[in-house]
Each structure stands twice: as structure tokens, then as C-alpha cells.
């Protein structure tokens, strides 16, 4: 039993280490990337190419005065950022990030490069935990004793639950073609080629579902163009107005963590997870596993860059446009995707 726990512990430590180091890297990517897009230099004073900028940012956030305004309800105020980070970390345990071909560690089978293996309701587990992310926003808004924060909280919660529906319905097409809710089986179903030349990733037969899912993930993670809840020009800072230093750092971190989980979900569900596009080498042993983890990491990194790219390119949606898009456009499109996939499966094309 201790060997099993040790294996799970190693996987968990690896995942946590990767996720928590991704946050400072993303801070740097965001600032230099935005500078690149806006045709200016980014931070370039601290370290070569400004690479130590996130370190300085962390120091700044840690040493800022930790204000707590009068009238906030302390318990809820402190609980909100904790929930934000805990939810984003808990979602990732059901995401497979590498190919396991019967490897062993400490004498125990590794049982898949996924912290919670053989979860036969994998996709549902992820959506159930992700739907709890609304609470952090709502509690932050409510407990802050501040009208702007409350409005930001209500808007963020309404946006989150609207796009959650579109997200879940868009995934049904993937579930239909893979025949299982288990994420490892969904990734395994995306090996090989389709129609002879395209890789059998779910994005090619289900383009509509993929686009709907990606837009919904943007909305769920409160990234532009859907970041009205934290828009500076509209609501001061939205639901995290009254948070300073560590509280703000926690929300900031949780946004990047949610982005990471969103990007890895897009990769696993629609872009073949750790499958290489056309090359068909058997990924055996530890070398194959490392190669598959590297492929997964590359795809996730590309999607994280895509998130940053879209943020600095598109303007923000107004709140009523956002809600109209979510209910009147996304959900019908996702339902249409189900119809499309159903017809395709029945006729034998997918």
C-alpha cells in the first residue's frame, strides 16, 4: 500500500510543481507577449529579457500591505481565494498527460500518467469541480462590502454558469465519438488518421464543437474577450477590488491555473492529447512516456499562447452581448454539433 501511495505522491508532486511553475512563466509570457503584439518592449530590466520579472512581481505582492477593509465578513473574505486556487488545482488530477505503456515505479504499475487513474466518469468529474469555481467569485463579491465588487461577482457568476452549459454540451460530441467518459480512453481514441490524411483528432470532424468549447473555456476562465467581471475600466477591479497583496495574488494565480487547466482540456478533448500528428512511432517505455509528455506540454503551451494572443487582440464584450452570445448562440451551436456528430457516426464517417 505504501508503494501505491508513493506512486500517487510522485505524480501529484510532479503535477503540482508543473502547475505552480507555470504561473510565473505565464506572467512573463503575458507581459512580453502583450508587448510584442502592441509593438513595444516589455519588461527588460530585470534579468535577461526580463526573465526575472515574475520573481520581482512575487516579491512585490508578498511585501504589499495586506489591507482588510472595514465591514468585510472575514471568514468568507478569506475563503474565496482559497476556493479559487483549490478548485483549479483539483481539476487537473483527472487529466492524462502522457502515455503509459505498462511502466512501473517502486514496483507498482504507474497506471497512466494521470493522478487519478481509471476514473470512469473523468469528464464529468472535471466539469463538476469546475462548476464550483463560481463560488470563489460569488463569495469574493459578496463578502467585500463594496457595490462594485458585488456587481462584478454577480456578473461573473452569471457568465460562468451560462458558459458552463455551452461547454458541457459541446463536449457531448466528443463523448459520442469516443464512447466513454474516461479521459484516457478519449485520448486513446484519437490515435491514427482519419480520411487517410488528417490525424484523428476530434477537432477535425467536430470543428463546431471544438470552436464552441474553446470560446466557452475563454468565458469560464474570465479571459478577454469575456473578462467583464474584472474589467478595469468598468468595475474598478470587479470582484477582487477589495483584495490586496496575497489575496490578489491568489486570484491572479488562480486565473492562470484555470487557463492551464482549460488549455489542457482543449488539448485532451479535441487535439489528441499526447498523440503526435502524423508520425506513428510506438511510444513505449520511459522514453516514449517522456516524448508523449513533451508533446502534451507543447500543445498546452501553444494553447496558453493562444489565450494570451486573443487577450491582446480582441476588445471586450459588453455584458448583454456576452449573455446573449452564451445563451442564444453557443448553446444552439453546441446542440447542432451533437446532431452533426450523431449523423456522422450513424453514416460511418467519424
Amino acid at each position: 500500500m505504501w508503494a501505491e501511495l508513493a506512486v500517487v505522491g510522485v505524480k501529484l508532486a510532479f503535477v503540482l510543481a508543473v502547475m505552480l511553475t507555470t504561473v510565473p512563466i505565464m506572467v512573463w509570457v503575458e507581459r512580453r507577449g502583450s508587448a510584442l503584439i502592441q509593438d513595444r518592449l516589455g519588461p527588460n530590466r530585470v534579468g535577461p529579457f526580463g526573465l526575472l520579472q515574475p520573481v520581482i512581481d512575487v516579491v512585490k505582492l508578498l511585501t504589499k500591505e495586506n489591507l482588510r477593509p472595514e465591514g468585510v465578513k472575514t471568514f468568507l473574505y478569506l475563503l474565496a481565494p482559497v476556493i479559487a486556487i483549490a478548485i483549479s488545482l483539483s481539476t487537473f488530477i483527472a487529466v492524462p498527460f502522457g502515455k503509459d505503456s505498462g511502466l512501473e515505479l517502486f514496483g507498482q504499475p504507474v497506471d497512466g500518467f494521470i493522478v487519478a487513474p481509471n476514473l470512469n466518469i473523468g469528464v464529468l468529474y472535471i466539469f463538476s469541480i469546475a462548476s464550483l469555481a463560481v463560488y470563489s467569485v460569488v463569495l469574493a463579491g459578496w463578502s467585500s462590502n463594496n457595490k462594485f465588487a458585488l456587481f462584478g461577482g454577480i456578473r461573473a457568476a452569471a457568465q460562468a454558469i451560462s458558459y458552463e452549459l455551452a461547454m458541457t454540451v459541446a463536449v457531448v460530441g466528443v463523448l459520442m465519438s469516443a464512447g466513454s467518459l474516461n479521459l484516457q480512453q478519449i485520448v486513446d481514441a484519437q490515435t491514427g488518421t482519419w480520411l487517410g490524411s488528417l490525424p484523428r483528432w476530434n477537432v477535425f470532424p467536430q470543428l463546431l464543437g471544438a470552436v464552441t468549447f474553446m470560446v466557452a473555456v475563454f468565458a469560464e476562465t474570465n479571459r478577454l474577450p469575456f473578462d467583464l467581471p474584472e474589467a478595469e475600466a468598468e468595475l474598478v477591479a470587479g470582484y477582487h477590488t477589495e483584495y490586496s497583496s496575497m489575496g490578489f495574488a491568489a486570484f491572479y494565480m488562480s486565473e492562470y491555473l484555470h487557463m492551464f487547466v482549460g488549455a489542457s482540456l482543449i488539448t485532451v478533448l479535441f487535439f489528441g492529447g499526447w498523440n503526435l500528428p502524423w508520425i506513428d512511432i510506438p511510444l513505449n517505455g520511459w522514453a516514449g512516456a517522456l516524448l508523449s509528455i513533451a508533446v502534451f506540454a507543447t500543445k498546452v503551451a501553444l494553447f496558453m499562447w493562444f489565450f494570451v494572443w486573443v487577450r491582446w487582440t480582441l476588445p471586450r464584450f459588453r455584458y448583454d452581448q456576452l449573455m446573449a452570445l452564451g445563451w442564444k448562440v453557443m448553446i444552439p451551436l453546441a446542440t447542432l454539433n451533437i446532431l452533426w456528430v450523431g449523423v456522422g457516426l450513424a453514416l460511418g464517417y467519424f
Partner: protein
Amino acid sequence: MVTYVFLAAAALAVIFAVLTVVPRDPMINVLSLVVLFFSMAAIFAILGMDFLAAIQVIVYSGAILVLFLFVIMLLNIREVEAFGSGRRWQALVGTLVAAGIGAMILVIAGLLLPEQGSVLPGVADIGTAVPIGKALVSTHLFAFEFITLLLVASIVGAVYLGKGEDR
């Protein structure tokens, strides 16, 4: 080992049920109910019903309670009253009735034969999505469609009630 997890989940459920009922702050009540639903989902998972555990969290914690939170925020509901204030007779009768019902169920449960039960999932994968999905569209199709109608009716009703009557 599983027994301990069950006992922990059950203890958590009872504690947070009491925290849902007794404190005056409606936010505390809703958040305790979230934890209660989580422990119920854990119990469903222990009994081998994975799909239901996920559905319980998605629908109850993730949707219904968010609705409650919205209403609390929109109506700005603060604490209303103390537990049982102004209702002394009802407090006594109510507690007796509740204790009575609880005791009755416990006695009946004690009289039941404890010998049956399944082992954890793996023996019969009856709790996963596939058998439930198949049953929903074959044996229970009428009820499934009827629930769809019920949900649509409730959405229409809620929207109409929420809009106000001067439209």
C-alpha cells in the same frame, strides 16, 4: 479503510446539516449545504454510483445552490431571525416529530437483514454512465421525456415570475 471514509463522510454530512439549519447567516447555510452535498456525493461514490456522485455535485452544488446564492445576493438577505424564535410550541412539537421520524426509520433499518450488499465497483459496473444512459432511453423513456417537459415548464414559469407582472 472504506468504512472509515464512509464514517468520515457521514459525520461531515451530519455536522454540516446542523450548520445548514441552525446559524442565522444565509451564506453560511448555503455553504454548509455545499459541503453536505459533497459528502453525499462521496457516499454515492463509496456505494459504487459514480455517475450519480458527479451529477449530484454538478446539479446540486454547481447549479441549484448557485441559484440560491444569486437570490441571496439580489435580494440582499441578511440574517432574519434567531433559530426557533417566537415559536416555542412549534419548537417542542417539531423536535419531537423529527426525533420520532428519525427513531422510526432507525428501528426499521435495524430490523432489516444486513447481509446483502455489493462490493465496490469493478464487480458490477452498474454505476457508470453507460448502463444508466441505456436504461434512461429504453426502460424509462417516458419518465425521461416527462422530466424534460417538467424542466421546460419550470424554466418558463421561473422566467415569467421573475419578470414581474407589468409587462
